[in-house]
């Protein structure tokens, strides 16, 4: 029976090509607009590391000024101090932990003819690579001993390795940065988490860094920082030492805690540590430590831009207008079919049967509208990319979830729009339309 | 009052030339009740459209109240229809979304009467056809006969020079048909000129005068009477 309905639907669509085309267009435009904004929002809010996002926690300690708010009232600052980061690394009970920040370095390629160029460096600890599941093309990350010994080792991104070594296996070779030699221990494969969840203080959708070096090395050689540094009071001491011992925050801190028990244990440690620091005269504000998993942290940092949400809302309303249009078109179409319907009723079709038949037809139109709409959405996403530039390159890709969502939304919308017109058309009395007047 | 002389109506398409009316002439005086009969395809409808200024004819002259209405433009023709002619259609042609009051009101609005004037006229004619009490009802709530009566009221509301009726009982059962015909006869008795187009000879007999059209011309009624008699045989 369903096949029969499909056939009838197709014939009916064909019989009225202009009207059908208009209906498909009306739905397609609405779906196109919606899927463009839905895709961007979906990717912005997408979980970049779903298989362990609830085991990775961003750590916040409240060392801030009792007299003023840092970003938000009652919110601890969004980074930690050097003192606290080191203390946690030393003693906090976690499966894995990392402190990290960013630097801007200058890489001098071995070749004399090549000009030196700027690279972004992520300064971090050995646990970074297994914690965030970075994929390796060659070699691996470094180990805890290298951190402790402040070895000058480096992991290159795939793109950096391409640029400097032509993509070869460069493990074991050296690369010169800021006048110092670093030994390559690993080369990453393609890695571009969207958003850049591990550092949301410096551009939520930026590219990941070009090189990775041990945090302790960056500190030891006072490599230039490239991130946000916030201080609520001037350092007490002088120079770099004074800075490290100050209340200035400039470090992002993550802990991997596999179970609820581990999380509780860690939280207890944080609280105890904070109490201890209070006794030393630090942490003047009330106890306010935070552990946020990846999704929570992304929400707190408001990764999904307001503008993206506004556009989503507007395009849903836009779809509504398109649907109202579709209802009108369907009414017009079904009026012309009243003869057919009356005949079928006279021949014994019940109202529900006819209702289903015409809903199937609407579903077909919805399907067509969805397909065309996805094409329009692809166009829309390309337009978004052109407007916003390459920053959004990773936010304008359609995956299967989005494609199915688009088709589903189109069919659902078409069915919704056709409920009233179909119901009304089926009210035709069996014999009423059979006379010629 | 009404004088059509040698009216011809030719429909031309690329392939075919149809002569719907040939050299048709008709004079109607004040107070006349004329029936125009003829078989299907004889040109009755064309005559109706021309008499009612619904269509323009190819050649001939048409005078109404001494005024030549042959060459009027669309707006002028509309005005003449509005002021001088009252239509009664086979299918009643009431506007389904309007109640009886608003339906009768339609031609009066184009006339430019004041609101009070219109109200008086509408109430008067609806009363005349016996439907004043149902002024606020919709046509769908009335029987066929009642709907035709409303249509007649609408035709009379503007005090037209003549009524032009097209198969007024065509869509009615015999009982309703009789009552409508009685109404029409009464109206004529009160002095209104009536031109009625019909194919029903029994209906035609109610009129004072009969004009028979065949193949677009006025024909000798004798020829067709035999055929009709044979059909009723």
């Amino acid at each position: 029976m369903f096949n029969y309905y499909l056939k009838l639907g197709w014939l009916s669509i064909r019989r009225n090509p202009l009207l059908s085309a208009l209906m498909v267009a009306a739905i397609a435009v609405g779906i196109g607009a919606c899927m463009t904004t839905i895709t961007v929002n979906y990717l912005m809010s997408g979980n970049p590391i779903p298989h362990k996002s609830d085991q990775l926690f961003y750590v916040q300690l409240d060392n801030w000024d009792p007299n003023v708010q840092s970003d938000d009232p009652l919110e601890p600052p969004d980074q930690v101090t050097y003192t606290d980061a080191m203390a946690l690394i030393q003693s906090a009970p976690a499966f894995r932990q990392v402190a990290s920040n960013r630097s801007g370095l200058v890489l001098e390629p071995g070749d004399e003819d090549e000009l030196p160029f700027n690279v972004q460096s992520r300064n971090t600890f050995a646990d970074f690579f297994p914690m965030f599941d970075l994929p390796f093309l060659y070699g691996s990350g470094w180990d805890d001993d290298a951190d402790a010994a402040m070895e000058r080792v480096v992991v290159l991104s795939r793109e950096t390795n391409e640029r400097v070594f032509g993509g070869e296996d460069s493990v074991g070779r050296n690369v010169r940065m800021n006048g110092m030699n670093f030994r390559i221990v690993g080369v990453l494969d393609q890695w571009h988490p969207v958003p850049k969840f591990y550092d949301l203080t410096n551009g939520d959708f930026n590219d990941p860094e070009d090189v990775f070096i041990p945090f302790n090395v960056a500190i030891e050689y006072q490599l230039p920082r490239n991130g946000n540094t916030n201080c609520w009071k001037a350092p007490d001491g002088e120079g770099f030492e004074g800075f490290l011992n100050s209340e200035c925050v400039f470090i992002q801190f993550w802990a991997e805690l596999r179970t609820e028990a581990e999380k509780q244990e860690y939280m207890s440690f944080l609280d105890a540590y904070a109490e201890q620091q209070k006794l030393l005269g630090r942490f003047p504000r009330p106890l306010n430590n935070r552990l946020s998993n990846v999704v929570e942290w992304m929400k707190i940092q408001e990764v999904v831009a307001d503008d993206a949400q506004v556009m989503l809302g507007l395009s849903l309303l836009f779809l509504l207008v398109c649907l109202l249009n579709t209802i009108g078109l369907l009414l017009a179409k079904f009026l012309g079919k009243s003869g057919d319907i009356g005949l079928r009723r006279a021949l014994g079709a019940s109202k529900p049967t006819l209702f289903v038949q015409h809903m199937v037809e609407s579903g077909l139109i919805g399907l067509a509208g969805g397909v065309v709409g996805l094409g329009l959405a692809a166009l829309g996403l390309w337009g978004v990319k052109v407007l916003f530039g390459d920053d959004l390159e990773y936010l304008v890709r359609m995956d299967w979830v989005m494609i199915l969502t688009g088709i589903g939304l189109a069919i659902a919308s078409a069915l919704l729009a056709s409920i009233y017109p179909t119901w009304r058309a089926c009210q035709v009395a069996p014999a009423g339309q059979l006379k010629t007047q | 009052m009404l004088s059509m002389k040698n009216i011809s109506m030719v429909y031309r398409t690329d392939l075919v030339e149809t002569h719907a009316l040939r050299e048709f002439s008709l004079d109607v005086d004040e107070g006349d009740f004329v029936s125009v009969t003829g078989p299907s395809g004889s040109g009755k409808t064309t005559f109706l459209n021309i008499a009612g200024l619904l269509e323009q004819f190819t050649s001939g002259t048409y005078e109404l109240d001494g005024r030549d209405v042959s060459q009027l433009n669309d707006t002028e023709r509309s005005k003449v229809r509005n002021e001088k002619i009252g239509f009664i259609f086979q299918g009643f042609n009431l506007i389904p979304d309007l109640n009886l009051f608003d339906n009768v009101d339609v031609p009066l609005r184009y006339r430019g009467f004041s609101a009070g004037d219109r109200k008086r006229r509408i109430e008067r004619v609806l009363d005349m056809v016996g439907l004043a009490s149902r002024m606020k009802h919709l046509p769908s709530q009335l029987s066929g006969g009642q709907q035709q009566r409303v249509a007649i009221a609408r035709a009379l509301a503007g005090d037209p020079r003549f009524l032009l009726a097209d198969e007024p009982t065509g869509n009615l059962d015999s009982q309703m048909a009789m009552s409508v015909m009685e109404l029409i006869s009464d109206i004529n008795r009160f002095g209104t000129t009536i031109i009625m187009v019909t194919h029903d000879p029994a209906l035609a007999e109610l009129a004072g005068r009969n004009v028979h059209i065949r193949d677009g011309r006025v024909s000798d009624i004798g020829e067709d009477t035999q055929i009709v008699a044979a059909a009723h045989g």
Partner: protein
Amino acid sequence: MELGPIWRALMRNKIGAILIALQIAVTLAIMVNAVSIIQERARLMARPSGLDEHNIFHISSVGFAPDFNERATIEEDLIALRGLPGVVDAFQSNSVPLSDGGWSMGLQTEPGEEIDGTGVAVYFIDEHGLNTYGVNLLAGENFSATDVDWRQRSEHEWPDKTLITRAMAETLFPDDPDGALGKAVYINDDEPITITGIIEQMQAPWNSWSGVERVMLVPQHTLFGATRYIIRTEPGRRDELMPVVEKLLAEREKGRIVRSMRSMDETRMESYRGDDSMIKMLKFTVSLLIAITAMGIVGLASFSVNRRTKQIGTRRALGAPKSAILRYFMAENLIISLVGVALGAALAIGLNMWMVETFSLTRLNAWLLPVAMLLLCLVGQLAVLGPARKAASVPPAVATRTV
């Protein structure tokens, strides 16, 4: 004009009218809010930065060689830059307005830890800074060469003097902004710093910051390893001089790389790119929306006219001239549009209130609503013109047809 019967007829056959009215309502709601956002963004983008933007560009210098002498490099770079023909002036700084990265501190009018400072953006300049930016000094004096010293990376003490923007003066001393001149303010809770001049306007690096007009200038060269040079050229010579400067600096000293050369125009464009894109997207959406609604009206009106062909013929037979038929449908559409825009106005306000609440958008401009309502009614009338004219051309003879 038979408004009463038109309305009563509409009431008995509401669906087509409701569909059009709803479309108009939702379109109005979207349109008004979108235009409101566009206006707000355009306003933001139009704010001047206080600089002679068209003739200014900047370039970064990052030292890397172990023997890199930053101080000597900066001194010699500046001499070379200022000596270039076509260059009006140049100086070295930590960041640039609208560049999205920079320093902020807090200044307070009284010393003390417990007092909340006012956030202010900090730029390090020398005695050539004001001239390079083309900024007006409203009161007081520019820094002299002797005022300017050298700041090491982890230094946290500040010079004695500062120049602040008028906006900062107004925030610090709301009752007497002009009196700010000569006063001491406190940085880092209790370190005094004297206001020796007030400049007309300069913007902070962050264009969406509420304090974007609050800037303080301090007389220091920075030795942070990486720095930025800001160069002002004679009018019209910027594009020609940019590659010249890049080459000059790159060749002069090999222990550093030069990168990220941008004109201020480009910097502004980048800074507001998100807003500009939003404006473009909204304009496109609104245009499309109006087009769709107009087409929807054309479609529904055509449908409605077709459905009533018999009725139209009857009216013509009863004496309606073509103009009356045209006016009927135009009037009917106007009534529907009026209902639509009335409903739409309510929706628009509701939507705006919600967006102000949720996204901190600005309230919409009062006059926007009536203009948009008028516009949509006009669009509706234009859209229905075609179908109305088709209706008017229905021949009176339709009334006598029996099929």
